[in-house]
C-alpha cells in the first residue's frame, strides 16, 4: 500500500538557537538600560545601573535574604497550588456529576476567574489573619477557579465518540474514567493548570507585599521602604526568572509532550 508514515517532528524549543536568541536579547536590553542610566534622566536612586543592581543581588544573596525568600515563597506556592488542584479538580468533578449544580457554579466561577487576586487580601486578613494561612487563602482563591472551570469544561468537551467507542468495548465506571475520560481531557486540563499557575504566581507576590514579613514579595516591599531600587529590581528579576523557569521547564514541557503524542502541534 502506498501509505507512509508522517515523520515525527523534532521539538525546536530549548535548542541552542533559542538560548543564543535569549542571550542576544538580554545583551541588548542591558545595553539600552546602561545608556539610559548614563544619560542621567533619572537620579541614581530612582534608576540604578545594571552593575549597581548586580551589587544588590550579591548583597541579598550574601545576607541570605534572597535564598530564604525564594524558599519560603516557593514552599507557600507549592502548598497552595497542591490544595488548589486537589480541591478544584474535586469540585469540577462534582460539577460534572450534578449538572444543575455545574451550570450554576460555572457561571459563578467565570465571574471569580477575572476577580483580581489582590482584592482577596483585605478579606483574607480579616477572616484568617496576618499570617501564612492568610497568604495561602489568597493564592488558593486566585487559582482554584481556573482549575474548577478547566476540569469541568475539559471533561464536557470530550468528543462523545471516544466514550461511545470505549463503552462499546465494555468500559464503564471507574475504568472508563481512568482510561478514557482522564486521558481524553488531558491536553485541555494542562492548559487550565498553566493558567492557574500563572494566577497563583501573581497572587502570591501581591499577597506577600501586603501581608508577609518574609518572602519574595516582602523583600520587594522592603526595597521600597528603604528606597533601595537595586533590591527592588533584583527582586523583580528573580520573580521574572522563577515564573519563566517553572512554566518553561515544567508546564510547557508537559504540554508539549502531550501535544506531540496527540499530533496537535504539526503546524508549529
Amino acid at each position, binding site marked *: *500500500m502506498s*501509505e*507512509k*508514515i*508522517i515523520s*515525527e517532528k523534532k521539538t525546536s524549543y530549548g535548542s541552542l538557537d533559542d538560548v543564543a536568541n535569549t542571550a542576544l536579547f538580554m545583551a541588548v536590553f542591558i545595553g539600552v538600560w546602561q545608556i539610559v542610566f548614563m544619560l542621567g534622566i533619572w537620579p541614581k536612586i530612582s534608576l540604578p545601573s545594571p552593575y549597581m543592581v548586580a551589587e544588590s543581588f550579591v548583597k541579598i544573596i550574601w545576607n541570605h535574604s534572597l535564598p530564604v525568600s525564594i524558599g519560603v515563597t516557593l514552599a507557600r506556592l507549592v502548598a497552595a497550588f497542591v490544595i488548589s488542584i486537589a480541591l478544584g479538580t474535586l469540585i469540577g468533578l462534582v460539577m460534572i456529576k450534578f449538572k444543575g449544580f455545574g451550570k450554576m457554579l460555572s457561571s459563578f466561577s467565570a465571574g471569580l476567574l477575572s476577580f483580581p487576586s489582590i482584592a482577596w487580601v483585605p478579606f483574607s486578613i480579616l477572616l484568617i489573619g496576618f499570617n501564612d494561612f492568610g497568604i495561602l487563602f489568597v493564592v488558593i482563591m486566585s487559582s482554584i477557579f481556573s482549575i474548577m472551570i478547566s476540569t469541568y469544561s475539559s471533561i464536557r468537551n470530550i*468528543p462523545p*465518540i*471516544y466514550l*461511545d*467507542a*470505549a*463503552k*462499546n*468495548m*465494555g*468500559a464503564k465506571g471507574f*475504568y472508563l474514567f481512568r*482510561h*478514557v475520560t482522564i*486521558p*481524553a481531557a*488531558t491536553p485541555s486540563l494542562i492548559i487550565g493548570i498553566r493558567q492557574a499557575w500563572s494566577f497563583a504566581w501573581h497572587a502570591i507576590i501581591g499577597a506577600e507585599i501586603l501581608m508577609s514579613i518574609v518572602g519574595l514579595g516582602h523583600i520587594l516591599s522592603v526595597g521600597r521602604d528603604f528606597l533601595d531600587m537595586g533590591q527592588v529590581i533584583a527582586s523583580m528579576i528573580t520573580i521574572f526568572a522563577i515564573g519563566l523557569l517553572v512554566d518553561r521547564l515544567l508546564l510547557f514541557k508537559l504540554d508539549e509532550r*502531550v501535544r506531540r*503524542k*496527540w*499530533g*496537535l502541534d*504539526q503546524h508549529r
Partner: protein
Amino acid sequence: MTKLQAKNIVKHFDHNGNSVLALDGINLNVEEGDFICIVGPSGCGKSTFLNVVAGLEKPNSGEILLNGKPISTPGPDRIMVFQEGALFPWLKVIDNVEFGLKMAGIPKGERRQISERYLDMMQLTKFADSYIYQLSTGMKQRVAIARALAMDPEILLMDEPFAALDSQTRDLLLVELQLIWERTKKTIIFVTHNISESVILGNRVVVFKNRPAKIKKEFVIDYRRPRLAEDENLQKYYHQILEELKSEVMARIKDENQ
C-alpha cells in the same frame, strides 16, 4: 441459526421539543455468518438502528435479542467500527487494539499475542508503536477493524467505516473485508449509503425507507467472492437496489427542503 433478532424497534428523538420518529418498527433477523448491508438515504436512521443494536441508544419500544436473549446495554459481544475518529490519540496503535482486551481482564502476554495477530492480518505490524496521528485515514480504519476483530465479537457492527476513504484505499479494503469475513466467519452488519459497497460486501442487502426508517425491501446477493468493485455482473444488483432507493433519496431531499 438466528444470531440477532430486532423486534419491532421504535425510536423517537426529541428535536427542539418536538418528537421526531426515527425508527418506525424495524424487524430484522440476522443469521449466523450473515453479511448484511443496510442502505438508505443519509440521515434516514440506519446509524441510529446500529446504535440501538450496539446498546449505545435505547429504543422506545421493541427489543434486540442476541442468541435469543434480550440485550439493552453495550457489550463486547457487539463491537462497532465507527466512520472515523474513534481511535484513542493518547495510545499507541497496539495499545488501541488491546484496549478492549485489557478491559475484559485478559492478561498482558495473551493480549499482546492477540493484538499482534490482528495487526499482522491488517498489515500494520510495522506501525504497532506509532501514534494515531501518524497514520493515514486508510490505516486508521484498518486499526479500527483490527481493534474490533481482536475483541472476537459475536457480531461486528460497521457504521460507514469506509466513507472517509479515497476510492483506491476503499477498493482494497472492500476486498480485505470479504477475505476476513470468509476467514473468520463473523456475522457482520454493515451500514452504508453507497450502493456499490453494499452489493460488493453483502450476502443480504436491506433497503431502508427515508425517515422514519422502515425496511422497504431486501435483496439476496448470491454471487462468488471475492467480488471486485469493477465486476460488471454486479451491475444488475446495483440497478435493482438503485431503483428502490431513488424514490427514498428524492423523499429525503424534499424533507430537507421543507
